[in-house]
């Protein structure tokens, strides 16, 4: 399989040792060590936010590591800028291409490399020859804006080849490609690595990994969580390594519910930005009152887009959404909130809270347009503080009081505040998007209890989760998402973790059952 091996098997081509990277408020990488050999295709697998891109941006000089070293063939090197990285023959293709669309292929490729007088004719010939050698069907004289996304990616690759890169890092290279384009890309990757080059492939798609990689490193919450050869693993094991946290037993015996009438009704919902792969495709489901409806899937398969579309932050291309028999497809976020839609977002820092505001103010966030806590626009601060206090008590939030700043709280307590807010002030339909991600056991239990209580209160609940234990413990029915499509809707009793794992990996209903 691997036709080329480095001279010395014990010293890897490139090696990252104990890399840590801290951003102001998050740990992006912690103690990450990994290496890649010549001739090897290494897949960096993990969910969104697992730290894959950050760690590769460090190798490419876009970020500086706070701790740790980089080695090339056993020698310590420093990479401070992409220029240093290019000097060491490393090249990275970003998820979002960095091409000047009004310029030609040739102009883009020699950009940053051209000095003085440019021999355009020769440059164009060189590039065309390079393209032909790898079987890229790209015209070096064409403008970028006239190329398809797949061709643009080839230009990015050509750019790396033109710089004589020996290590090619590709960040989610298939996200924007059609199946045929993916095949060509995979062919290139194999061809390129067989010439003694190395490829690091960042992805969260299991099928691709099995297709192209020699070795797979799984990352989770900024750390390395597995390092396996392709021959020694399978998709099921990988999906488990990616998503499984310590599978704790949930003492939340399912209340046998008898679901009421339909609350939320989604019909053929599609979100397809122009000239891009659809984010959601023909999604259809109903959620009944008193039902917990699960959305399972490896993260990044359309779950966030579904939540965003339902709450009104993202426009749908086609299809409809009804809430309690009212068409809400085109309503604003504010109107949906007024109709009683609650939303606990997965990224609470970004979408759920204002970190530098007090807990009271964070309570007010959703209610600022309603007369709950204000008279003629003037906030009734006493009433707001009282209600906030009682919610803090009820949801067991550890905080000094309603005046505490949100940022002073631990993640678990922040989440309890958001859950409390959404549950107390929103009506009959609540979206929980990965409500327990990153929480400790106590907080997880707390959130689960709240969700089950709302079910008893006959609310319709949508629970997005990448944790199978959570899905099985709480949900009545579950829809499995893969690449923005529903792979099937099942009663949780019909499934086991093996079947659901395969569905999440992209196998169809028929193949599984």
């Amino acid at each position, binding site marked *: 399989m691997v036709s080329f091996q480095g001279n010395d098997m014990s010293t890897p081509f490139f090696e990252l040792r104990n890399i840590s990277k801290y951003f102001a408020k998050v740990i992006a990488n912690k103690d990450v060590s990994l290496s890649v050999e010549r001739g090897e295709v290494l897949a960096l697998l993990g969910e969104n936010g697992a730290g894959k891109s950050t760690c590769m941006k460090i190798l490419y000089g876009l970020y500086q590591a706070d701790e740790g070293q980089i080695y090339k063939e056993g020698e310590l090197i420093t990479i401070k800028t992409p220029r240093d990285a290019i000097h060491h023959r490393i090249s990275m293709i970003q998820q979002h291409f960095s091409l000047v669309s009004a310029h030609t292929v040739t102009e883009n490729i020699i950009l940053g490399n051209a000095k003085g007088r440019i021999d355009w004719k020769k440059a164009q010939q060189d590039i065309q020859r390079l393209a032909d050698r790898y079987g890229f069907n790209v015209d070096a004289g064409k403008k970028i804006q006239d190329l398809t996304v797949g061709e643009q990616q080839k230009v990015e690759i050509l750019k790396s080849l033109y710089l004589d890169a020996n290590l090619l890092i590709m960040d989610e290279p298939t996200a924007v490609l059609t199946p045929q384009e993916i095949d060509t890309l995979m062919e290139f990757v194999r061809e390129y690595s067989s010439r003694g080059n190395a490829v690091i492939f960042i992805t969260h798609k299991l099928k691709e990994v099995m297709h192209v990689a020699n070795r797979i490193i799984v990352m989770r919450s900024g750390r390395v969580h597995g390092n396996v050869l392709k021959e020694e693993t399978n998709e099921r094991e990988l999906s488990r390594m990616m998503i499984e946290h310590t599978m704790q037993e949930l003492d939340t015996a399912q209340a046998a519910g008898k679901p009421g009438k339909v609350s939320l009704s989604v019909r053929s919902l599609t979100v397809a930005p122009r000239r891009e792969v659809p984010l959601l495709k023909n999604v259809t489901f109903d959620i009944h009152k008193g039902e917990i409806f699960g959305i399972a899937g490896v993260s990044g398969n359309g779950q966030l887009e579904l939540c965003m579309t339902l709450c009104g932050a993202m426009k749908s291309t086609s299809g409809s959404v009804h809430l309690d028999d009212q068409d809400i497809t085109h309503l604003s976020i504010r109107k949906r909130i007024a109709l009683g839609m609650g939303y606990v977002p997965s990224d609470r820092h970004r979408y759920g809270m204002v970190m530098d505001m007090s807990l009271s103010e964070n309570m*007010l966030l959703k209610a600022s347009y309603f007369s709950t806590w204000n008279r003629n626009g003037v906030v009734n601060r006493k009433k707001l503080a009282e209600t906030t206090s009682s919610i803090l008590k009820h949801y067991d939030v550890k905080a000094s009081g309603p005046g505490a700043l949100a940022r002073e709280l631990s993640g678990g307590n922040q989440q309890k505040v958001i859950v409390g807010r959404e549950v107390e002030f929103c009506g009959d339909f609540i979206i929980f998007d990965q409500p327990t991600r990153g929480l400790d056991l106590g907080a997880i239990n707390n959130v689960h209890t709240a969700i089950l209580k709302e079910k008893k209160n006959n609310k319709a609940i949508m629970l997005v989760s990448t944790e199978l234990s959570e899905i099985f413990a709480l949900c009545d029915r579950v829809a499995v998402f893969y690449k923005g499509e529903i792979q099937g809707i099942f009663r949780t009793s019909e499934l086991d973790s093996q079947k659901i794992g395969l569905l999440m990996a992209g196998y169809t209903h028929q193949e599984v059952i």
Partner: protein
Amino acid sequence: MMDKKTRDILITNFFAVVLGLLLSGFMILFLKKNPIQIFALLFSSMFRDGYTIGEIFVKATPLIFTALAFAFTFKASLFNIGAQGQFYIGSITAVSVSLLIPSPVAIPLAIILSFITSGLWGGFIGLSKAKFKANEFLISMMSTYVALNLMNYLLRTVLMESKGEYPQTETLARSTWLFKIVPHTRLHFGFILAILAAVTIWLILYRTTFGFRIRAVGQNKEAARMSGVNPERIYIITFIISGGLAGLAGVTEVNGVQHMLLQGFNPSIGALGIGIAILANGNPIGIIFASILFGALHVGGTIMGQLSGVPSSIINLMEGFVMVFVIISYYVRRKWEVSRDKKLLIEGTI
């Protein structure tokens, strides 16, 4: 223990002022004068008589407005660099109203209309930001030059005094002057208007749902959007109010101090307002005090220039130095905060 943020603000601002004085002290050294003597003269001359003390507040008045203008958009994480231009628009409106209606009615009318015209002038910046994602920093800055040249154009044409000699208007009728609040000084009603504006802005920001939404957009636009707030609408409204506030400085300067409009009218109050707002960390009440500090420096400096033979431009230089350091201190504070967060994070994980 003092809150770390407040501590940072006090420390950095203190050093900003001290560094500004120190640097301008060096400039005085070049003139072969003793900077300590000169500064002593500066401080003593501020308080030498009632008239001078009144002058401090006269100078502070427009600064309160332009600083409020900057602070208000700043709370929504927007930069209104164009208070100077909005001030010119307010001045043009105030002088036009007062010349057309030479009676006391002109005063309330000038206040209302100046707020509206300069508000619309500012609102245009917010609109272009909301609709076209234009850079409000650049547009507000460049719009200042448009306003300046509009003013100069009008001063050479329709607003020009009847003799047609100077680029300035006729003196306003006495009945349109803002009345004095302390006899034997130039201190006028405009100062009270400025205090009222500052208190009102504070109430809006910290006591109403509208102000809450502005701050929410400023601190986390996405979370605000998810809560049903339309950040784009907030951009437009805050810029209207911000522009209006800067325009009110036009009324206080035209009807309260100069009693006419002339070329080169108060060319630096917009820039000073930015620094004052940052010195006060955007707090409307803090702005009142920071403006008075700058008013005092200005008044003391002018007298110092007259008495000591040190050119009075040294005081502008000093204001400039302090301003630059105050603005730098804002970024220093931010850096401290980020590294503090980072440290907590690292300690928490080891």
